[in-house]
């Protein structure tokens, strides 16, 4: 314990030394400000909402009580990473949903539907279509081969050190971009919903997320995600039900009313969301394959006892997430009818109070009154907490399991040491998240979620896919090709409109990369690089790795020798 505290203090000192430098760096490279559909943009502070705060306090109370219970069960590294492997498929399906359905997608997509109708649906579908691929290609194979992180699977027959360094980089980059977007969104949202200052909101989110992960590990994180998924699905169902009730459960009547309010039928067909075919397909590629490369999602497949439960969990996840997007669409159309024309929710200029992303929140007020508004606000807060806890746990595992235990200690670290490192990393990540959340308050973070997906699709997914399914893949191929995918996705995003113009402030139309997502180029580039480097790799090590494929394949197909759930 003392060593741990010293470790934290040491980390803290390093952090203090580099902290201000980082702020200056980020402030220098990321000026600019804008709004986007996938994160919560700049908002105005609202009057303090005591109902919402009360409901949120109840949620926090319950989750902290669960964390206390979970802390007693979190003794080993296995407990910390996988909740002992005893989560059922149904529970894990809900938890995956809780990990995946972010506040940004709930508020962002319903707002996009309110603004553009059908176009919002196109965006939602992109988030849905990756799930069957995870089912057919990855879920059971991951469970059969891995133990704690997706790097376990990639590194199964490869050299540990380079593969672990690559996988940890892929994980940390994705987690960090995703986390920044969530923290900034959280601050804006809470300022708006609860009337709290931005900085308090970010500190509360960071503090609670640290508490869940630090003390309760995967057990607490899982239950926070399950509770949040139930609250979100329950609340959204009620809203969609109330909207449909008004129209006798006839979608046609709802659409008619919406077209009447908008005074145009344009919302019923595709509009400006898809500008050029290349961008459209590229975004589709990023969302579809990115889902299959998100480290915090992949990690969830190790919390179930076997392949059967892994399959069940992905089926439940697909079902709940698909249902959620259907609800979001109905809520968006409900907002057109009940919110966009209602002067109660508009300011003097006829703009939605609190910003465009408030569509679903105002609708909650319109269909369920102030108490329900408070409930949905608490749900939005809980949603952010569940997502950031999952991300933090995934980032901490990458550092403690992949970098510390596997790359540095070569698998000789004790469970207790590994656990200690993951806890220190959790504290460190929590502080970084709060600090970046504050540093990016006024920045445009719109590109970060799509960047996280693009990197997951271009780095993590190709390496994982080929290492599992292609005998010829070698360490060199996976690592070099994976890094090429990571870097190319990053560079192309920086050179695209979303960063070059919207963030860096270059003149409109000057972006060197003309498309809105890099994935259609960076993902095939990664596949190609892995393939070329692997076939050119004629070393003895590469030959051994190809031979080891047979054992790996049989294990991935049959679960022979797969890690069993830790028993208590």
């Amino acid at each position, binding site marked *: 314990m003392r060593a741990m505290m010293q470790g934290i203090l040491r980390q803290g000192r390093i952090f203090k030394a580099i902290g201000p430098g980082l702020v200056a760096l980020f402030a220098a490279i990321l000026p600019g400000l804008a709004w986007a559909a996938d994160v919560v943009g700049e908002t105005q502070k609202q009057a303090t909402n005591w109902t919402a705060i009360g409901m949120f306090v109840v949620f926090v109370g319950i989750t902290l009580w669960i964390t206390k219970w979970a802390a007693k069960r979190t003794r080993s590294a296995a407990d910390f990473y996988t909740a002992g492997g005893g989560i059922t498929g149904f529970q894990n399906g809900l938890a995956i949903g809780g990990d995946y359905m972010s506040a940004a997608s709930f508020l962002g997509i319903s707002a996009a539907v309110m603004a553009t109708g*059908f176009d919002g*649906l*196109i965006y*939602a*579908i992109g988030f*849905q*279509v990756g*799930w*069957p*691929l995870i*089912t*057919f*290609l990855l879920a059971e194979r991951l469970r059969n081969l891995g*133990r704690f992180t997706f790097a376990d699977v990639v590194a199964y027959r490869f050299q*540990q050190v380079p593969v672990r360094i690559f996988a940890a980089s892929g994980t940390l980059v994705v987690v960090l971009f995703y986390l920044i977007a969530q923290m900034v969104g959280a601050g804006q949202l809470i300022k708006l919903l609860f009337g709290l200052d931005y900085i308090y909101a970010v500190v509360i989110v960071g503090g609670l997320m640290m508490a869940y992960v630090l003390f309760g590990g995967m057990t607490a994180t899982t239950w926070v995600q399950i509770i949040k998924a139930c609250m979100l699905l329950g609340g959204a169902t009620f809203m969609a039900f109330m909207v449909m009730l008004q129209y006798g459960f006839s*979608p*046609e009547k709802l*659409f*008619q009313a919406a*077209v009447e309010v908008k005074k145009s*039928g344009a919302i*019923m*067909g*595709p*509009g400006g969301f*898809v500008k*050029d*075919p290349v961008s*459209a*397909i590229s975004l*589709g590629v990023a969302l*579809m394959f990115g889902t299959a490369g998100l480290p915090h999602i992949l990690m969830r497949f190790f919390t179930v006892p076997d*392949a*059967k439960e892994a*399959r*069940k969990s*992905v*089926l439940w996840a*697909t*079902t709940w997430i*698909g249902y959620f*997007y*259907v609800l979001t669409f109905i809520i968006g159309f409900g907002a057109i009818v009940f919110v966009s024309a209602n002067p109660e929710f508009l300011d003097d200029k006829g703009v939605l109070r609190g910003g465009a992303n408030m569509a679903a929140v105002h609708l909650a007020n319109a269909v369920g009154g102030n108490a329900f508004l408070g409930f949905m606000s608490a749900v939005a807060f809980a949603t952010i907490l569940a997502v950031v806890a999952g991300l933090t746990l995934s980032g901490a595992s990458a550092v403690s399991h992949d970098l510390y235990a*596997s790359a540095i200690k*070569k*698998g*000789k*670290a*004790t*469970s207790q040491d590994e656990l200690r490192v993951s806890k220190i990393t959790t504290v460190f990540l929590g502080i970084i998240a709060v600090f970046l959340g504050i540093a990016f308050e006024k920045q445009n973070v719109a590109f970060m979620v799509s960047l996280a997906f693009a990197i997951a699709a271009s780095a993590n997914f190709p390496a994982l896919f080929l290492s599992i399914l292609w005998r010829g893949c070698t360490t060199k191929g996976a690592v070099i090709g994976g890094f090429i995918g990571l870097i190319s996705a990053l560079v192309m995003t920086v050179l695209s409109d979303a960063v070059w113009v919207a963030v860096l402030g270059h003149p409109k139309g000057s972006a060197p990369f003309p498309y809105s997502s890099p994935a259609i180029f960076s993902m095939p580039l990664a596949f190609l690089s892995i393939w070329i480097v692997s076939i050119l790799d004629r070393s003895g090590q590469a030959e051994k790795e190809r031979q*080891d494929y*047979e*054992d790996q394949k*049989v294990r991935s*197909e*049959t*679960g*022979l*020798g797969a*890690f069993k759930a830790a028993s208590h």
Partner: protein
Amino acid sequence: MTRDAALIDVQQLLKACAGKICENLRKQDAPMKEERKEGDMASELTQRIQKNPQYQDLTKRRDTLGRWLAVLVLIAYYGFILVIAFDKSLFATPIAPGMTTTWGIPAGFGVILLTVVVTAIYVRIANREYDRIIKEILDKEVQP
């Protein structure tokens, strides 16, 4: 048996026990090592399983099913996107004259429904049938 020989036997037994305990301790602390060791021992077993006709049949059927369902999802989704990219008016057409609901709505919800349906088909077949076959293969090939 002489006294010395017996003593050596006991010594060896103790050594073996100590070795076993150490190994168990190592197993708890260093999972990577355990994995490596299992891997080496599995080689012969791997060959046996790969020669098993039931296994060959299973992997072939499973790969075929997974591939076709994946292709179905890819065609549905990218078809949906391509229609939007190249012929927006198709999805903006009402499904019947005088109606507000356009073809885009059933198409979009159809894609969402399809993802759930294909996942359910695969999971049902895998959990009912494939798992049973895998158990049969392992029961047969893995001798205690």
